[in-house]
């Protein structure tokens, strides 16, 4: 009897945890998109007001920005500093394609970042500002969509996890 009870508790905990974990991905995407906006904004200030070289601007921003932007910018900045022939758009594309999924960014989010990276490295001061503004706007829109999706799915997944595991307990008890 106590063993059965223990099993039921374990099923309940693991089922609920699965629900919570799946829900957490939606929340992480929202958080990542928000932090990316802040980071692009900080980078824009470095470019617009200090006219810092891109590699240094990326590293400076990386030191202040949280995950994922901090890590992505850090990698890009380091790669640019290491070899002069590296072009930002190529470096950034490689990093996004390798890393973005691990921050729960969808293909649509990645497209925004890739397009931003394609345009950023080769522009004038005024154009850089516009490129950053557009990226921030698109990230805001993506965040709004991610938030609404998260609001719908987070509760659903959490409840589903608890309820499905409860159903299993009832069925097998």
């Amino acid at each position, binding site marked *: 009897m106590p063993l059965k009870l223990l099993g039921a508790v374990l099923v309940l905990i693991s089922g609920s945890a699965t629900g919570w974990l799946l829900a957490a991905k939606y929340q992480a995407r929202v958080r990542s998109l928000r932090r990316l906006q802040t980071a692009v904004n900080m980078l824009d200030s470095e470019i617009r007001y200090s006219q810092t070289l891109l590699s240094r601007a990326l590293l400076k921003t990386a030191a202040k920005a949280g995950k994922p932007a901090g890590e992505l910018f850090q990698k890009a900045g380091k790669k640019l500093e290491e070899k002069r022939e590296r072009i930002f758009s190529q470096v950034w594309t490689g990093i996004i394609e390798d890393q973005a999924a691990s921050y729960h960014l969808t293909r649509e989010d990645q497209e925004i970042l890739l397009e931003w990276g394609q345009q950023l490295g*080769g522009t*004038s001061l005024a154009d850089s500002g516009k490129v950053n503004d557009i990226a921030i706007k698109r990230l805001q829109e993506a965040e709004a969509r991610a938030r609404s999706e998260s609001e719908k799915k987070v509760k659903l997944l959490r409840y589903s996890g608890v309820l499905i595991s409860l159903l299993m307990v009832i069925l097998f008890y």
Partner: protein
Amino acid sequence: MINQVKQYLPVVIRRAVQKAEEKIESKLLEIRLRCGRPLELVTYSGSSFITAEGEILECAGRAPDLERALVPDRELLEKAVLMVTENSPYAVQDKLRKGFLTLPGGHRVGFCGRTVLEEGTITTIKDIGGINYRITREIIGCAVKLLAKVYNREQKKYHSTLVVSPPMAGKTTLLRDLIRLASSGCKEKNVRGYKVGVVDERAEIAGVYRGQPGNELGPRTDVMVDCPKAEGMIMLIRSMSPEIVAADEIGSREDVRAIKKAVNSGVTVFATVHGSGIETLLAHPDLCPLVERKVFSRYVFLSHQEGAGTIESIKNAGGEEVIT
């Protein structure tokens, strides 16, 4: 020095230039990239086109085999622009507007393309179709032979000296070494070191990169980088109390005014200007007063006669040859 420039060449071009360089006897002066046209290497002895393998295609008296030449395309030029601007054209926009920027070591990269105008003023250059990497050579000691003629032993001070030469004849190299010499002093010739202020408007003299001078300018030299010459000279005189101020390629009315002010303040001026003789200076409406009022007491004329840096003559304020 040339290795500093090579770092800023796209890999394909760098490899070809490296291989070609071994076969070129004379020193490399320029690497010219033109979109859709053969890459050109300019040396003291002439110019050559090369293949991607670094084979020299054109020599004196031989027709160039341009079909095999290494021809940079738009993509390669765009890559070169991103490399020299370190992926940050926005950070060098002001320099791009003037048509050139400076690499570490004072090497100059010139650009040609479509200028973007705003209210009649050039704001930037886009669609760059030509890039010219001009290699700066630091020749330590090349000014020592001038010392006896540009240093006044009685007054124990240097003469205000204007180095005059056509482009690419070595006037910046000579000025750089004159600055180094004046700043360091010359023990053998019993000349002490002086405080020198340098206005390096194009960052070519000191080759300053990220605040660190790339060229040797002596221990008593203060450098004002990316600063308009006229303003820089006055700023230096006010703030750094130099005994000598130096500037490259003077020419505007403001420069002339600042030089007069400096000389009147008792400061020696070292400067360079494009020209080929006293008459070319007299024909220049802004520079003419400098000659007429004898602001400079020494003129050093350079030419390409026996290679860049050939000293044709050294004259005093009256236009007479200086003999020591």
